[in-house]
């Protein structure tokens, strides 16, 4: 357990404790409204990271999975005439629908070079958006309404909040488990040098596809919760190009490929965007600001806040160590670059 892991872990546990009591303390509906949407994005950003952050294949089409989950719940809720609480049971099914869609999409898209992959995901996104606008089963371009529960107004948001919280927490735990597992190792090896990894026996396509399906499952569930919460499924909002950009930005901002990074990104950026949309009656302010923020992150913090922060932290520690060393004597630091730091032993036994 490195110090960084402990720090990250304690931070997350603290957040969990705060999150569990949040709606009971901040009863203002706007606050809980923000919170529900933010938690949805925490889940999606983390899910996106499980696939794109670890494998290095940047998906700009995750809205497809989000939208599939959303529309599945909408159509099913309308057709099956379920009661308010029961509609929540559709959420995992919605995730499953998105996961199923991910299989053919992945089989086509994961066979190409990385940047072609990004472009293909964009194309898939537009196919999905156009299909939703044209098909009658999805209500065409005017969309469909989702049956709303008639719970008490003051605590209306709370059930949504807790469902979203459970999904978000589960996703974070899943991301952590993936990162520690052999599966995660293979993904990250694919990210660094896919051909070399394949040459060493890593089965690239099944690994990538599995990550995509997992990511799609969670994103689909998130989409279902969100659409239930907002009450309507309209193609241009469900399949919104800004959605994809937002989750990419969140993951990048916090730290691509880390577990806590996307969480931090979502917790910072989503409330910011919601607040901006509230304060400014136009939508373009947030667009311009997000674009500018994105550029800042890409140009100056390409590894994200958390890794860069950790780097500065260790540099500061090294500086302190050097100051503490007596003058004339260099502080003993592990120098990974020194060739003479090689201490061989005899050949390992059992050369079969």
């Amino acid at each position, binding site marked *: 357990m490195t110090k960084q892991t402990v720090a990250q872990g304690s931070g997350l546990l603290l957040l969990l404790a705060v999150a569990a009591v949040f709606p009971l303390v901040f009863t203002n509906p706007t606050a809980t409204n923000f919170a529900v949407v933010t938690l949805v994005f925490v889940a999606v950003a983390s899910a996106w990271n499980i696939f794109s952050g670890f494998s290095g294949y940047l998906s*700009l089409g995750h809205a497809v999975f989000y939208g599939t989950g959303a529309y599945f719940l909408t159509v099913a809720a309308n057709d099956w005439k379920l009661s308010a609480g029961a509609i929540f049971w559709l959420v995992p099914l919605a995730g499953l629908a998105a996961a199923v869609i991910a299989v053919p999409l992945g089989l086509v898209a994961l*066979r*190409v070079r990385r940047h072609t992959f990004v472009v293909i995901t964009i*194309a*898939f996104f537009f196919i999905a958006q156009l299909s939703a606008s044209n098909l009658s089963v999805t209500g065409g371009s005017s969309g469909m309404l989702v049956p709303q529960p008639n719970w008490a107004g003051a605590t209306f948001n709370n059930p949504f909040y807790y469902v979203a919280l459970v999904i978000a927490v589960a996703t974070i735990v899943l991301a952590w488990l993936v990162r520690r597992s052999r599966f995660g190792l293979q993904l990250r090896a694919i990210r660094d040098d896919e051909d070399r990894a394949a040459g060493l026996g890593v089965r690239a396509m099944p690994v990538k596809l599995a990550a995509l399906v997992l990511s799609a499952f969670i994103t689909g569930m998130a989409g279902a919760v969100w659409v239930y919460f907002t009450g309507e499924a309209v193609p241009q909002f469900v399949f919104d190009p800004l959605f994809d950009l937002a989750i990419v930005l969140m993951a990048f901002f916090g730290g691509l490929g880390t577990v806590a990074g996307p969480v931090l990104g979502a917790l910072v950026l989503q409330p910011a965007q919601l607040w901006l949309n509230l304060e400014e009656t136009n939508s373009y302010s947030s667009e311009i600001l*997000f*674009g500018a923020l994105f*550029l800042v992150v*890409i140009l100056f913090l390409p590894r994200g806040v958390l890794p860069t922060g950790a780097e500065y932290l260790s540099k500061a520690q090294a500086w302190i160590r050097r100051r503490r060393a007596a003058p004339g004597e260099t502080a003993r630091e592990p120098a990974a670059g020194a060739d003479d730091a090689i201490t061989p032993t005899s050949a390992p036994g059992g050369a079969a």
Partner: protein
Amino acid sequence: MGTEIAHAIADGILGGGVYALMAAGLTLVFGVLDIINVAQGILVVLGAYLSYVLSVHLHIDLLVGLLITVPAMFVIGVGIYWLFIRTLRGAERTSMTLLACFAVALIIEGVLYREFGSNYVSLNAWYVNQSVHIFGFYLADIYLIGFGLAVAAVVVLYLILYRTTFGRAVRATMQNQTAARLIGIDVNRVAALTFGIGVAVTAIGGMVYGSITSFTPNSGYDLISRLLAIVILAGMGSIGGALAAAVFMTTIEALVDIWQPDWSIVVFYLAMVIVLTFRPQGLFGRHAVRAQ
């Protein structure tokens, strides 16, 4: 029915010319610099708005206005490269530059919303709504003009690439950046100028696009998805392929429009997906399927 189909094909081929030009700009930049400029769509819209401002506020004819908008877009392109893309390096460079272009696109879209609002506007000139009568049907003047401009621009592009020193430097950089540097080519300058050229063509594309359809800042998304689809169907880096793919797109769309206007573009996207399933590098793509 026969004339309808023939008309659709004619429109498709002519209309494809302009898309081909914009897609050529995109694929050129990718071929030389390994950059996917996803801002190309919104830049076309920007070009259209520039033509709009010149036409409506300064009463400059659209075609004449190109003499201003083309250099203007060129400068903007060079600026974007120099400010935001030049410094990006490393293993993730292609993805990072793509995201940077996405961010720039977002900013431009926001600014356009701020300046022009979300009302639909379109470009007008005496030739925009007229057509010529050929072979028993009408061909819109603007399509012919657009096609002519596209052909002229592509010819100019080829002349630059194959008959000038600069063009030689561009092709050298496309083939081997390190070697190009070693023989004294200022790769950064070549890159910036190439990017500028790739963007400059959007001025022409914008003018024609804005004359054919009305547009808002939101039109950028539809445009970029079409351009990207054209480019990957053709195979990234292939200019000739982009021409063919663009014409294919507009022709298919025009044909399907006869029966099912709602789905016309989806058919094209699906065709692209089908091609990619069997040929991941695109129809004319040169690169191997997997390279880092």
